[in-house]
């Protein structure tokens, strides 16, 4: 009973040296250390930003509308995660199952976006409308710096130029730092989805997930929200700053 009350109050008033639940304290210590991990990866990305010798570059491959949608999905998954936790604390196992399943589905949707993005980058094609380029000089100005290096391919008689120049971790510094950073974030999301699905599974077993053991869900929720806040930073620093024309 005392345990249930402590769990419901976020692990406070425990009989420990700190008066706090040490599992929760450990989780916060882990999240603090993970901040340093992602801080290093983000700093490395920023340091090498603009130093790639060959393309493709961020402005060639990034699609802000697509990434905005996946960011929205991840933000909403955080809401459904807290609603799952709140439902459990109200004693509604059914509500918990619905919201935790929603969170896992949104997490998988985010991962699907990432797989789509990575595949799209790896198969990136430079496409030039040579007829437009020959007849309209302004068309060249609309090309990215990387695309401009292919304008010479538009010789007489060539109407369209299309060649695959994919971005992989080995292509350039941008590819290496980008895939390392977002790949590790994706790995965190994957682990989070597995954790959420395991909680959903155990909610069907006797005594697996109960209001008295809501701390188990609280820890998973903390991890999930952390993945969300890291993405908030990545979305701004990597994507928005990465392709903004003024920078």
């Amino acid at each position, binding site marked *: 009973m005392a345990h249930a009350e402590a769990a419901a*109050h*976020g692990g406070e008033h425990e009989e420990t040296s700190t008066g706090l639940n040490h599992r929760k304290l450990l989780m916060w210590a882990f999240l603090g250390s993970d901040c340093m991990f992602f801080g290093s990866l983000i*700093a490395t990305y*920023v*340091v090498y930003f603009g130093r790639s010798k060959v393309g493709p570059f961020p402005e060639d491959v990034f699609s802000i509308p697509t990434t905005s949608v996946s960011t929205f999905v991840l*933000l909403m998954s955080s*809401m459904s995660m807290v609603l799952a936790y709140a439902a459990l604390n*109200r004693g509604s196992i059914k509500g918990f199952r619905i919201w935790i399943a929603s969170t896992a589905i949104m997490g998988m949707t985010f991962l699907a976006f990432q797989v789509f993005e990575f595949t799209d980058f790896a198969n990136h094609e430079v496409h030039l409308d040579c007829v437009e380029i020959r007849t309209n000089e302004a068309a060249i100005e609309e090309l990215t710096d990387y695309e401009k290096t292919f304008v010479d391919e538009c010789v007489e008689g060539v109407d369209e130029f299309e060649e695959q120049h994919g971005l992989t971790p080995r292509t350039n510094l941008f590819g290496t730092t980008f895939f390392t950073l977002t790949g590790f974030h994706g790995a965190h999301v994957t682990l989070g989805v597995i954790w959420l699905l395991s909680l959903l599974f155990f909610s069907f077993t006797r005594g697996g997930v109960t209001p008295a053991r809501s701390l188990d869900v609280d820890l998973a929720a903390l991890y999930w929200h952390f993945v969300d806040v890291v993405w908030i930073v990545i979305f701004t620093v990597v994507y928005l700053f990465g392709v903004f024309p003024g920078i």
Partner: protein
Amino acid sequence: MAEQIQTETQSDSSVHTGHPTPLTYFKVAMTLSVITAIEVGIFYIEDLGLGIIPILVVLSTAKFAMVAMFYMHLRYDAKLFTGFFVGGLVLALSIGLSVLALFKFFA
């Protein structure tokens, strides 16, 4: 009726968890969505130039803080939890700035 349900939920939630109500969580989610929409909208204003950096930093910091305070319950939990997380954040920021300085990013 809706108000009654909300009051009951609020009361129930307050008694059992000391955490915000589902309505608060929903409002936070909507605010996060609006801020994200503003970020993306601002992104397309090319005239801002380098001025976009402080604007986006403020907006993303606001989103980060909202998730940490309301969804991660730092606003309601023990201060030691906040200390552990903010401590890690400060160290992360220090590491980041050190790496940038080491590679003469600010030169």
